[in-house]
């Protein structure tokens, strides 16, 4: 006989008042004090999740650096640059994986398209705000006006709508010329779906995140190698890239750690998130819109009862969602849970095959936008972690692009003979740039593989996603 027991609400361990300008080093002491208390009680959290702010990510790096030892795991791949090496921190022999919140990741992916400071360029295709505006204004489209106008950047549901299978299907069907945006929507949607999906196999999750990883690496390499592109303008932000790569690596790490340390427990990846914290904040703001630290401590017993209510009765889920304007809490949603699948572990061979398959798919998607994946991945170098800006004397700015070089001559009086020479130099530089650019793109013959074939690739993958 099975006795269904109540759902288990999160346990609030600490509420610490702090300044918004506190450094990661200041937060480290608080964190390690708490972790120490947990370890003394023989509690070893398998995941450490936070949002993607620079301070939090730096704190996570400090936590990793403080590990007692490391569990090394490698997923080999014969394609250059595609072997994934994971270093999982161990504390007293127990693993603790630093994770990023996947729903924050989805909002970050969405917000990259809204910034005016960048214009994302995926090979031959740019991705920019006006495309989203058109998409949302389409009378048959699945997006709302409020998804693109007066945008709430923390709106979980708007982000979910943008990266949904329906949106992707619609975009591929109605905007076949915007292959870059379709590809971006597909890759990022799949990355988060790997975390949030309640019933797919873990080997499929691995393939989805590895595909996203290879795709992002190839894309970044292409921007770095391109003579006229810079990662500050044509690529997603450095922080976002770091968040997405962490999302990829931490999910694979979780699967490997569960397989080795907790094989009898199913892995529910969506629970390794900061969603419980946001749920708590939402409830706090319902009770008192603006609260101080004493209010937090005073309201704690009430909060506990409210959270118990939310967990005890699923029908209150929608009520819970009203507690914060943009947040949509789903971490206790279990209607389509498949525990058997969630407790089935991929073998090393399965992961290697998933890696090969992920690369092939990333290669096709990159080829669809004109990027040669093998070439780019072979030359990939990971960006260095952010350093505090050093105060140094301003260095002489050297022209970085052809345009900047030409500007040097713009207001200079030149004789006709010198002018001809300058023109020749400019032509030579331009030809050299075109040569360099052409070598990075997929050769034209095979890439007559243009929009129509790119659409077919995306259509196939989209259909797979819908089903």
């Amino acid at each position, binding site marked *: 006989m099975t006795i*269904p*027991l109540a*759902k*288990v609400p*999160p*346990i*609030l*361990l*600490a*509420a*610490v*008042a*702090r*300044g*918004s300008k*506190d450094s990661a080093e200041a937060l480290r002491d*608080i*964190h390690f004090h708490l972790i120490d208390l*947990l370890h003394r*009680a*023989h*509690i*070893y*959290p*398998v*995941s*450490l*999740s*936070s*949002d993607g702010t620079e301070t*939090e990510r730096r704190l996570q790096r400090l936590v990793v650096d403080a590990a007692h030892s490391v569990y090394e795991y490698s997923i080999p791949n014969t394609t250059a640059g595609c072997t994934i090496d994971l270093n999982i921190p161990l504390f007293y022999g127990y693993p603790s994986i630093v994770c990023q*919140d996947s729903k924050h990741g989805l909002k970050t992916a969405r917000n990259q398209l809204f910034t005016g400071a960048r214009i994302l360029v995926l090979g031959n295709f740019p991705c920019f705000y006006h495309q989203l505006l058109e998409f949302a204004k389409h009378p048959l489209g699945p997006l709302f006006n409020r998804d693109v106008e007066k945008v709430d950047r923390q709106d979980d549901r708007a982000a979910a709508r943008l990266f949904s299978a329906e949106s992707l299907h619609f975009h591929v069907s109605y905007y076949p010329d915007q292959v870059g945006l379709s590809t971006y929507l597909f890759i990022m949607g799949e990355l988060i779906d790997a975390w949030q999906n309640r019933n797919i196999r873990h080997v499929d999750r691995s393939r989805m995140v590895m595909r996203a990883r290879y795709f992002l690496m190839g894309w970044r390499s292409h921007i770095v190698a391109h003579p006229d592109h810079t990662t500050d303008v044509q690529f997603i932000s450095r922080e976002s890239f770091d968040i997405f790569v962490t999302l990829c690596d931490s999910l694979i790490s979780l699967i490997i750690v*569960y397989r080795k*340390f*907790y094989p009898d*427990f*199913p*892995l*529910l990846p969506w*629970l*390794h*998130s*900061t*969603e*419980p*914290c*946001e749920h*708590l*904040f939402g409830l*706090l703001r319902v009770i008192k819109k*603006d609260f*101080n*630290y*004493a*209010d*937090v*401590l005073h309201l704690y017993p009430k909060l506990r009862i409210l959270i118990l209510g939310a967990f005890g009765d699923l029908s209150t889920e929608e009520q819970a969602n009203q507690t914060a304007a943009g947040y949509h809490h789903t971490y*206790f949603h*279990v209607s389509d*849970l498949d525990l058997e699948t969630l407790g089935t572990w991929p073998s090393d061979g399965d992961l290697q095959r998933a890696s090969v398959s992920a690369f092939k798919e990333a290669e096709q998607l990159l080829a669809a936008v004109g990027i040669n994946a093998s070439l780019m991945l072979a030359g990939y170098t990971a960006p260095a972690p952010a350093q505090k800006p050093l105060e140094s004397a301003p260095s002489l700015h050297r022209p970085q692009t052809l345009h900047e070089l030409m500007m040097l001559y713009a207001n200079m009086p030149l004789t006709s003979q010198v002018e001809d020479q300058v023109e020749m130099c400019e032509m030579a530089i331009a030809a050299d740039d075109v040569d360099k650019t052409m070598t990075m793109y997929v050769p034209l013959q095979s890439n007559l593989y243009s929009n129509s074939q790119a659409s077919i690739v995306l259509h196939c993958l989209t259909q797979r996603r819908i089903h």
Partner: protein
Amino acid sequence: MAAEVLEKLDYSGPLALSWDDTNLEQSLSVWNEGNDAWTVLGGSDGPIHVTSAEAVDALFDDSQLKKADKVCHRILTTCLNII
């Protein structure tokens, strides 16, 4: 407390620790614990314990005392939806 809850649940499986912060109204509050013991809450360097009402007043007059504008929660979650 966490250990107690987990023991009651007889749960020995994986646990997830998460943390996040939210905005806090900047203000100081005083908690009188009796017997000339007060705790001033709301500073960014943590609670301050004082033993006289004058010390409390002095703290409130101290313009250098930094008030917290964020509260960071740390939450432990059992990694099963249903136990």
